[in-house]
């Protein structure tokens, strides 16, 4: 299988008066269509790693190749374009725009690249609302929903541009156990049905155990990389 993400020799140093190195020589590839988790204690560097994969941050040294293109040397605009097309984010906080409805929030990544909404994308949004089970609130303002509904809306938003990769940073951090379970079920369904690659950052080993591959980071280094054998 081909890799959708390739990291080689990634160092990350924060220079804020004193240099603080948070990632040390990370080499990591993710296969297209895989379902992965990155675990580690807080401060281990896992979120920094995810931000580098997601092009929100740049490595101090090393190469980042996403969907065949090197992003660490790309222009800001090109990176923004790639982020819009190839990557979908789900964060611990839903980060919906409070001025907009659920539907408008969901369509935002599409509107960033296309000035006009197509019939196809509207149909797709409807189907996704159906899939995650929140069709009834799609015209609510983002502020007028429960936490679970907000996080599901954020998932639809991450999916609307058919990204190759979904990066999720503690996506269930603010959800109760019922919603947490539903969230990972949705992730699994999408991974299976659409073939989207998932990388989930979490500190919760139980969540990581539900994924097919667990990468553990400690003090900025990979200390474990475990792949589950799955029957096709």
């Amino acid at each position: 299988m081909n890799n959708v993400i390739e990291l080689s020799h990634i160092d990350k140093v924060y220079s804020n008066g004193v240099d603080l190195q948070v990632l040390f020589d990370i080499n990591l590839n993710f296969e297209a269509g895989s379902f992965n988790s990155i675990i580690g204690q807080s401060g281990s560097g896992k979120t920094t790693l995810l931000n580098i994969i997601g092009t929100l941050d740049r490595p101090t040294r090393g190469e980042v190749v996403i969907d065949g293109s090197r992003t660490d040397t790309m222009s800001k605009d090109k990176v923004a374009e790639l982020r819009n097309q190839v990557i979908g984010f789900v964060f611990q906080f839903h980060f919906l725009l409070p001025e907009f409805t659920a539907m408008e929030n969901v369509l935002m990544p599409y509107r960033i690249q296309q000035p006009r909404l197509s019939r196809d994308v509207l149909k797709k949004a409807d189907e996704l609302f159906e899939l995650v089970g929140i069709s009834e609130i799609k015209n609510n303002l983002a502020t007028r929903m429960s936490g679970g509904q907000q996080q599901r809306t954020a998932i639809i938003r991450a999916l609307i541009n058919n990204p190759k990769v979904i990066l999720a940073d503690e996506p269930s951090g603010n959800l109760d156990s019922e919603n947490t379970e539903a969230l990972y079920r949705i992730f699994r369904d999408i991974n299976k049905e659409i073939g989207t690659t998932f990388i989930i950052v979490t500190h919760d080993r139980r969540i990581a155990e539900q994924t097919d591959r667990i990468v553990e980071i400690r003090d900025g280094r990979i200390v474990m990389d475990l792949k589950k054998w799955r029957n096709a």
Partner: protein
Amino acid sequence: MLPFSLALRFLRAGRGQTILITVGIAIAIAAQIFIGLLITSLQKTLVDRTIGNQPQITISPAGDAATILNWQKIITTIQETGLVQTAATSASGNAFLFKGTQTAPVLVRGFDAAADNIYGFNSSVYEGSWDSSQNGVLMGKDLQEELGFGVGDEVTVQTPGGQTGTVAITGFFDLGISQLNKSWLITSLGKAQSIFGYNGDITGIEMTTEDPFQADTIAAQLRAKLDNSTISITNWKEQNEQLLSGLQGQSLSSLMIQIFIVVSVVIAIAAILAITVFQKSRQLGILKAMGIKDRSASMIFIYEGLIIGVIGSIAGSALGLLLLYGFSIGTSQSGNQALIDIYIDYQFIAISWVIAVLAAVIAALIPARRSLRLNPIEVIREG
């Protein structure tokens, strides 16, 4: 246009703030338009009332001479230059008017037909009529009231040289200036020439120009062209120097006020929009994480500036005009004579709009630039 609809939505979401800033711009523009148009109207009214129905350039005999020599040639030369709108010839002289035991000093003024373009005799005659070829005279309103004449009455006129003649009153005029209404007797050029024995000569050439404010330069050009030491050429500007320097001072202070208004508007908009960037940094971070380009992100603020600038300036000019008409009605004297004739300078309004919108956009550049520096990670880290 995503940045435009984002701008619109952000403005709507922060309704209170948006209304406040728009009202601020509207009041500033209203003040600017009110002051600007008021000063323009005031100056136009002043100039109109000062020189409205009067010649702007006058040629009279130099020194002690009574009449202008070779005046036909002078008229031809003036007309050849094409610099003046109207050139009328006049023959005037002081005289005494008798009626029974009453006497009054008068200025007999004989004009040709062109003088109507300057003084507007036809429109200022309120009883009887004016005809530049007739032999009768028109009398001013104040003199009529003082002596109690009627159309058709005959009066005796005696010149300082001792000649006397009798003329019939064919009408009465009101030129709006009591000094003229009290002393002028208007007649035809020929009649005045015969009363004073000018022998076909004239005592003045009176002219108007396209742009009254060019009167001094045109007068200088005529002076050079005619090069005649027996005549003297004057214009209204040199006779009204104090008025003009007053107007200039007024224009300057009006300009200063307007500049200060614009500067304070720019600062106010920039300050408020800068706060908006801070308030919307979360949204900006999210949009950037979703792949909005920096340029589009900063366009949101430019559009915000543009939208409030346009709405503010439209509302402001409506308010400014309302103030102006209110002022005009409020200060009008009895008899419906407005203190100031309102003059709407559309060009000025258009320029004010452009300045307001430009100011809003320029003010928006500062927050727009700030938005460029915003890194989505900062927002995501803070949660």
